[in-house]
C-alpha cells in the first residue's frame, strides 16, 4: 500500500462533498474491511480516502420511529445490528444472516452502509434487505433521496449510487405476518463465500401465501428478485407440488453464473431444490 490523504469530515454532507470529484481514486472508508482488501492487493490505489469515522456517532443508531419504521444508521456496525433487540423483533432473519456473515472481527468494524454500498453480489446483507423491502436514504452534497434496496444494484459491483452519494440510513418497514429465512449455500468450506444465496420472505394468511419476496444472490450479477417464482406461490397453499413448481420457476428464471464454486447448471439444481426446502422451512417456522 502507498500513502494517501486521509480526510476526516464531520458530517455526511461534507463527506459527500469531498467525494464530489471525477477522480476514481477518491473513495469513502468506514469499517474498511472490503476496501482494505482491494488496497492490499493493489487493485485499488487511493489518492484520498474520506473517512466516515468522525460522523459515526450521528449515524450509528438503530431504533424504531413513530411510524414503526426500523431505522438503521449506515455507520452502525454489523455486530451492533446483530445485538439489537429491535432488529431481533422486527427482522429475526437479519440476526440469522449475521451469524454466518464473514466473521466476528469483520462484523465488529464493517458497517451496514458499507455492506450495502459495496455492490459485491456475494454479500449476504443486500438480498436479505431486498426481501425485507428495505430502502436506503442517500445523502449527496445537494440533498437526500430515498431508494429501495431492490433498485440499488445495477450490475456486477455496480450500484445506483453516484460517486458523491453516501448511504445515510437503512429503513425497514414493519410488515406484520411475514416470516423469512436466508439460506447460504457453500460448496467448499463452511466459511466460503456463498455459491448461492436464497432469501425467502413470506406473508402467510391461514396457510395461504398472501405475498412473497424470493431473492437469489451470489450466483447472480446482482441480487435478483424471482418474480415468476413469487407469482407461482401467491395465493397458494404450499403443498409439495407447489413447492416443486416454485423451485422449477426460480431455477428457470434466474440467470446464474459459472465459477469456481460450481457450474451454472449445478447451481440451477441447488436453487430448484433449496428454494423448495427454504419455503417449507419458512412455512413450518423451522428456521435455524
Amino acid at each position, binding site marked *: *500500500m*502507498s*500513502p*494517501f*490523504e*486521509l*480526510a476526516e469530515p464531520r458530517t455526511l454532507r461534507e463527506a459527500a462533498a469531498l467525494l464530489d470529484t471525477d477522480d476514481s481514486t477518491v473513495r469513502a*472508508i468506514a469499517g*474498511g*474491511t472490503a476496501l*482494505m*482488501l482491494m*488496497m*492490499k492487493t493493489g487493485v485499488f490505489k487511493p489518492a*484520498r*480516502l474520506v*473517512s466516515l*469515522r468522525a460522523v459515526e456517532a450521528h449515524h450509528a443508531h438503530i431504533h424504531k420511529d413513530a411510524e414503526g419504521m426500523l431505522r438503521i444508521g449506515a455507520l452502525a456496525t454489523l*455486530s451492533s445490528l446483530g445485538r439489537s433487540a429491535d432488529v431481533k423483533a422486527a427482522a429475526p432473519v437479519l440476526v440469522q444472516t449475521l*451469524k*454466518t456473515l*464473514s*466473521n*466476528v*472481527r*469483520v462484523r*465488529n*468494524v464493517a458497517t451496514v452502509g458499507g455492506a450495502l454500498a459495496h455492490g459485491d453480489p456475494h454479500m449476504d446483507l443486500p438480498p436479505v434487505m431486498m426481501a425485507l423491502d428495505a430502502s436506503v436514504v442517500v445523502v449527496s452534497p445537494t440533498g437526500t433521496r430515498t431508494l429501495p434496496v431492490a433498485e440499488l444494484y445495477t450490475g456486477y459491483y455496480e450500484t445506483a449510487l453516484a460517486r458523491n452519494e453516501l448511504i445515510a440510513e437503512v429503513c425497514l418497514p414493519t410488515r406484520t405476518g411475514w416470516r423469512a429465512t436466508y439460506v447460504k449455500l457453500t460448496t467448499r468450506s*463452511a*466459511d466460503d463465500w456463498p455459491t448461492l444465496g436464497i432469501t425467502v420472505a413470506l406473508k402467510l394468511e391461514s396457510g395461504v401465501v398472501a405475498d412473497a419476496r424470493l431473492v437469489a444472490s451470489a450466483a447472480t450479477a446482482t441480487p435478483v428478485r424471482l418474480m415468476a417464482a413469487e407469482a407461482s406461490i401467491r395465493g397458494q397453499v404450499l403443498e409439495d407440488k407447489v413447492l416443486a413448481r416454485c423451485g422449477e420457476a426460480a431455477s428457470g428464471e434466474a440467470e446464474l453464473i459459472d465459477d469456481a464454486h460450481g457450474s451454472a447448471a449445478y447451481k440451477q439444481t441447488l436453487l430448484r431444490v433449496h428454494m423448495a426446502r427454504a419455503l417449507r422451512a419458512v412455512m413450518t417456522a423451522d428456521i435455524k
Partner: protein
Amino acid sequence: MSSTRTINFALNGDPVTAQIGTHQHLVEVLQAQGLTGARESCAQGLCGCCTVLVNEVAVSGCLYLAAFADGADVRTIEYAPEGKLDAVQEAFIECGAFQCGYCTPGFILMTRQLLDAHPDPSEDDIRHYLSGNLCRCAAYAEIVEAAKLAARMRNSSLPR
C-alpha cells in the same frame, strides 16, 4: 492534509505516540513497537493471526488502518496486567490446543471475547464464534475443548 501523522493511543495500558503513514495498518505499527504477537498472515481478515482489541472489541489488525487507532485503547496478546496466564491460556496449554503457535494468540483473544459474550458457550457457539480463525495445523478439536475448559475455569472462579 498529509499522508503521515502522529497518533496517540494506549497500548496494553501504556500511552504511546507513534509517527505513522496513513497507509499503515495496525499490526505494522504494533510490530514497530516490538510486539510480535499480532501477525499478518492471510492479509484478508480470515485467519485471525492479526487479532487485536481496539476499545475492547476484536478487530483484524492487518485490515485496520493505524490512523483509526488514534485515541483508542489497544490491547494485544501481550497484555498481562498481573503477569500471569489467564484461564483461556491455561486451558489452551492443558488441552494442547496448538501446534506451531502462529495462530494461537488470535484464537486466545477470540476465545476470551467468546466467553465474555457467551460465558457458557455451546459447541455451536464456539464453532461459530471461532470460525474467523484458521489453524493450518488443525488443532481444532483441541481448541473446542480448550474453550469449554476455559469456560468452566472462568465460571468456577467467579466471585460467589
